[in-house]
């Protein structure tokens, strides 16, 4: 599918005050991974939730020309899935039941599945993210990294065209951070999904995304390839830190020296 995602004049408020206003972004391309970075309270989560239809917003979000914001939530959910930062604690469901729950919640594209077929499909996705051996384990009994993979499996099970990840790796150790990022990039390419993820780690954003959007105080400060969007200027202006950004072959080296007075 060659549908692109366009964000046109998006506005959303929080507690009565506008957080983002008239925000437009160049189209997102299927198979791309975009990082949304910026300081806290920049409006990143609000933007993501507005894209998912979870936060009231004005403006248009067009997927292949169709305005998602004009759709009822159930239809919006067929195309866009939002993955919150974490799963709730103390949920007495197994990994398999969690993914089955995602599939049963509302229809996904394709024929209606029998119970057995649904469980088979759920298990496939769980295998895909690499925790097949934990399929019957309770969500409460997993490590942090495994929980996040289970969470990702639930989102992926719905085969969204647009996958929105809200700080997917903030609480993970290094091994799982990279594992999740590798998986997300690979699946975006394989499935032609558009992934937009909120990240705090600039190095990971640079390494694992095709495009970086820098948001601060509800405005887009930079938007482009990692080497273009992450610069010393952005570090100073947006993050109020002094640092150096150098291109070293295929890698972007980011060194932070000090906070600015």
């Amino acid at each position, binding site marked *: 599918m060659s549908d692109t995602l366009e964000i046109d004049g998006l506005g959303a408020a929080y507690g009565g005050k506008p957080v983002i206003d008239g925000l437009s972004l160049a189209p997102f391309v299927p198979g791309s991974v975009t990082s949304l970075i910026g300081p806290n309270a920049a409006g990143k989560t609000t933007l993501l*939730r507005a894209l*998912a*239809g*979870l936060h009231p917003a004005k403006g248009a979000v067009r997927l292949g020309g169709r305005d998602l914001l004009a759709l009822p*939530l*159930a*239809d*919006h*959910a*067929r195309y*866009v*899935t*939002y*993955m*919150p930062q974490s*799963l*709730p604690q*103390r*949920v*007495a*469901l*197994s990994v*398999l*039941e*969690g993914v089955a*729950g*995602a599939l*049963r*919640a*509302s*229809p996904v594209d394709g024929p209606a599945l029998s119970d*057995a077929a649904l*469980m*088979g499909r759920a*298990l496939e996705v769980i*295998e895909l993210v*690499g925790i*097949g*051996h934990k*399929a*019957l*384990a*309770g969500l*409460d009994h997993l490590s942090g990294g495994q929980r996040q993979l289970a969470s990702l499996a*639930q*989102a992926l099970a*719905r085969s969204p065209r647009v996958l929105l990840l809200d700080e997917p790796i903030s609480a993970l150790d290094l091994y799982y951070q990279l594992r999740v990022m590798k998986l997300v990039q690979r699946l975006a390419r394989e499935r032609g999904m558009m992934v937009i993820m909120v990240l705090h780690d600039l190095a990971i954003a640079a390494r694992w995304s095709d495009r970086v959007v820098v948001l601060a105080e509800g405005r887009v400060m930079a938007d482009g390839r990692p080497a273009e969007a992450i610069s010393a200027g952005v570090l100073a202006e947006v993050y109020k830190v002094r640092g150096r950004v150098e291109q070293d072959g295929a890698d972007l080296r980011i060194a932070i020296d000090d906070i600015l007075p």
Partner: protein
Amino acid sequence: MQGVEHDPAAILAAYRARRRRRGMILLGMVALGIAAFLLDISTGPSPLRLWDVLLGLFQPDQLSAPEQTIIRQVRLPYALMALLVGAALSLAGAEMQTILNNPLASPFTLGVSSAASFGAALAIVSGISLPFVPADWMVPLNAFIAAFASVLLLEALARSRAAGMEGVVLFGIALVFTFNALVALLQFVASQEALSQLVFWTMGSLGRSTWGGLATLAVVLAVVLPFSWRAADAMTALRLGEDRARSFGIDVRRLRLFSLLRISALAATAVAFVGTIGFIGLVGPHIARMLLGEDHRFLLPASLLTGAVIMALASVLSKVLVPGVLLPVGIVTSMIGVPVFLLLILKKPTRV
């Protein structure tokens, strides 16, 4: 770690086995419910043998007239009411705990029962009636309205970001105290006859079980159950988090609203006919969850059954704890409820 040895077919087979096990547990609960029901009928000032009870139910002519009367007119309505009230309260509790995202939620702990009692007390003391409503329906109707209003208040609070879940629990506790105080005030100003009726409300009792009340509760349950069942998958998904559930396409607002309608119908009707019964709505769902996990396709029927069993057993206890005396069953559920609740808190997390 990736590449750990496992076999997808075996996993699916294990899941099916787990599902069968849950089915067996549910059947076991049904059997336990029937046994508790029969025990309930055979217990009382004149102990009856199980065989007599079975005769009394299916071939009453084989028994003496007094025995027939005891079984069919006195004990049968009590025992049936116990099952239905327990089932209704426990199902309401299960839905409350999911919809309000609070494991401490129940019609009793969050003040719904107290509100219903207040509504009933208001009707009893003021003696008002509405033009088209039969006099003996005013009390349950008032109870229902008050219960529904309190549930709406709780839901509005749960939705507002400021309060958080702790806020909901505190507000529920505040409701309990407030309505109990108001009921006490009404007791103070009540006439003698109204007073005795009022006191009944503060200790739930199966003693007033009438066939009319039984039929009403049965109808309410019969109407509510299919809708509850249809919402099971949505409620399971809601356990994964509200934003997540909404992103899966679930209209959480609508889910909550209709669930609350069901909860108030169940809790208010149950309380309207037997008074305040504590702990069933809290403990029933927890036991069900411990045994079967949170897939609501199992949790909801299991909550129904555990509630029914616990009430039937409480009814038995209310008859045997003090020989020759029929304790109000609300007192029994409170007494056994506290240690059971503590046990639940101290136990390890649930199995799936």
